[in-house]
């Protein structure tokens, strides 16, 4: 009989990988603290938390897309576009709530657009989202004509700048969506079908899964979360600016990959991605605290991304 301590095997198997990267995060934080103890000041922790929220939200969306076998390169630009749009709507007299809802609807529609191109027209996800990467930022600049949209209602700033019992509000938003995504990926039929779709799309289809719908779901989720992030950033900066979020898509992908998401699809966890986002944020923060010239930041980030992806490929190859 096969009934051998199945539950124990499961627990051991799943928590191990995330433990590794958690350890890496702790060591990294420890190292930065030794060089600059200000790392652990409550002021700095707040900054990190807000950064984690931004990377985390984007990385969760990216994780869903990658698990489903795709990639979304548009999120950084979509952050800029949605931030500009929410500011534009409020500036034109719409209420905060309505502006936010419209922006989230628009960003979801962008995701639907990606999903339909990928599933119905069979355009590679890389191409269609790369198109949006360029077009969305362009559109943001068209709207702002290069000038930030300022003079937004005070109450709007709470989203990006406020806190509840000392916890930054963006972090609370992150925790909310992380919990939803965690629940979907781990406990629902939908989640299981996402992994199956990314793992082997033909086998998934032949198992009776509507693979097109599942993939569309991932692109809509990713764009929706980019919309949320765009609103948070606009609120944090108190303005709508076309230049924000440059390269965030790569940071989000890197966070997911560091967290154990496989670029070939079908593998990844939300918990891992959150830790990955934290690692990315700590590296960013560390570069500032260690007073390394900001010109070097992109160089370091580039290296981190390449390392993470190489490790992913290497990990895969070792298994086969």
């Amino acid at each position, binding site marked *: 009989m096969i009934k051998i301590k199945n539950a124990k095997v499961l627990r051991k198997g799943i928590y191990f990988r995330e433990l590794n990267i958690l350890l890496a995060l702790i060591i990294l934080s420890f190292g930065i603290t030794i060089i600059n103890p200000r790392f652990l000041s409550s002021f700095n922790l707040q900054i990190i938390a807000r950064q984690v929220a931004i990377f985390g939200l984007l990385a969760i969306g990216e994780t869903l897309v990658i698990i489903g076998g795709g990639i979304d390169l548009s999120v950084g630009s979509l952050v800029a576009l949605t931030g500009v749009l929410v500011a534009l709507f409020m500036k034109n007299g719409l209420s905060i709530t309505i502006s936010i809802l419209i922006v989230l609807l628009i960003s979801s529609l962008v995701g639907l657009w990606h999903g339909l191109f990928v599933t119905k027209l069979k355009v590679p996800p890389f191409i269609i989202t790369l198109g949006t990467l360029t077009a969305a930022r362009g559109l943001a600049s068209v709207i702002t004509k290069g000038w930030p949209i300022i003079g937004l209602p005070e109450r709007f700033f709470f989203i990006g700048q406020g806190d509840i019992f000392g916890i930054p509000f963006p972090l609370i938003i992150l925790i909310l969506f992380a919990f939803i995504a965690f629940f979907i990926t781990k406990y629902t039929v*939908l989640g299981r079908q996402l992994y*199956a779709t990314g793992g082997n799309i033909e*086998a998934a289809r032949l198992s*009776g899964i509507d693979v097109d719908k599942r993939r569309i779901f991932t692109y809509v989720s990713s764009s929706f979360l980019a919309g949320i992030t765009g609103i948070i950033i606009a609120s944090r900066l108190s303005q709508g600016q076309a230049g924000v979020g440059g390269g965030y898509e790569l940071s989000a992908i890197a966070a997911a990959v560091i967290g154990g998401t496989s670029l070939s699809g079908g593998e990844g966890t939300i918990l891992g991605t959150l830790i990955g986002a934290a690692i990315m944020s700590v590296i960013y923060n560390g570069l500032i605290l260690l007073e390394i010239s900001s010109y070097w930041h992109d160089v370091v980030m580039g290296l981190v991304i390449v390392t993470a992806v190489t490790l992913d490929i290497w990990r895969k190859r070792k298994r086969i």
Partner: protein
Amino acid sequence: MGQELILKMEKISKAFPGVQALSKVDLEVYKGEILALVGENGAGKSTLMKILTGVYTKDEGKIIFKGKEIEPKNPHHAQQLGISMIYQEFNLVPNLDIATNIFLGNEPKRGKFLKVFDIKKAFKESEKLLEMIGLNISPDILIKDLTIAQQQMVEIAKALALKSELIIMDEPTSALAGKEVAKLFEIMKRLKNEGISIIFITHRLEEVFQIADRIVVLRDGQRVGELTCEENKIDEVIKLMVGRDVRVSPRIESKVDNVILEVKNLSSHAIKNINFSLRKGEVLGIAGLVGSGRTEIVRALFGADPKISGEIYIDGQKVEIKSPKDAVQLGIGLVPEDRKLQGLILSMALHENLSLPSLPSMFSNGIINFKREYKLVEDFVNRLRIRTPHIFQVVNNLSGGNQQKVVVAKWLALKPKVLILDEPTRGIDVGAKAEIHNLISELAKEGIGIILISSELPEILALSDRIIIISKGKITGELRREEANQEKIMQYAII
């Protein structure tokens, strides 16, 4: 026929994990001879040719080519030695012209220091080669603008450009129409007169007698016979091809009940007007050569390929099956022919694979109850005796037989009315094979309607109540259990 020996393969053996693909096979080819190599799927023809062209390395044996022992390391090496193979799938670059393709990897060069591709020379040579094989078109036409038959001729020209003395053609006629086949045979004869030897692999036996000088028959990795083509002995060849002992134990017959599935006028890109019905508790065998459309019938039925026309009835009710999802909801399961590419998600665990089709109906609120899921999986792991340390094992780490059991189990978990099994025992060991055979009998007894596709005729014969035979996308024959034998099936299959 000149009796000068050009190739001699002696006692070639090759084993793959779980199968002895070739055991001590001899093969000799004379200069200027067309040798037909025939045998059922899995008889070892391709393996033997892949050893000759350096794709595989042999376990034992000797290859003597033009009097010298050779050890081809890879296809390129074999080409340099003078042995070229033309595969069913051509190795041409569609966006380049004929001349460039002919000399790809073998380019004439000019210049002293910086060697550049001598395009003029390539064109001139190409023209000569094309003329030699009777293809009168300009070498600057792009490959993608050619017909399949013309592309094949370019492949032949390419082999000639390499100064090959032995050309292997794998099923060269399968993609050609009648006229084109005649043209190909003409070219083959021309090459023969030039002293080039050809090994011709085919399933179409009547063609063999039209063109070949000699026939060598392989079966189960052994050479079982040799015939000259002077007398027309198709029946004898068929007998040699299939004449193994039937080792599959016949199944316990079940009570065949009323019709559960009816297919009318089903057509898709590869099949035409297929009609059949299936009863409760019946095993319907579908036989036919690879590429005959067997798989395409069940794929169209299951909604995996788009249908051009056709009606499907389940329990007398007309149903619409537009996607596998519809089929699954109607209680049809499909164990596809390629378990790794179509049947399993290799990166996922056993339990996740096994429960995948059942999840939506088991958990209608969308939330998985792990206890119930594990219970279901454990039940089937025990019932099918899937050997695994625990149900969370990644399926990639299971043996082929156990992987196949997982694919079967994932459909049984759904309690299907109709279960389609496409090559359910391909590439699995003898023990697991017998277990799957017994399982098929058991399932039929429980009242499931079963459609069984297999290239192994003994398997089809032992398990089916009724057999339909497919050739070129159409049903060419139907045999009841009592009247069926391998020879009859083969007769229909090569129509």
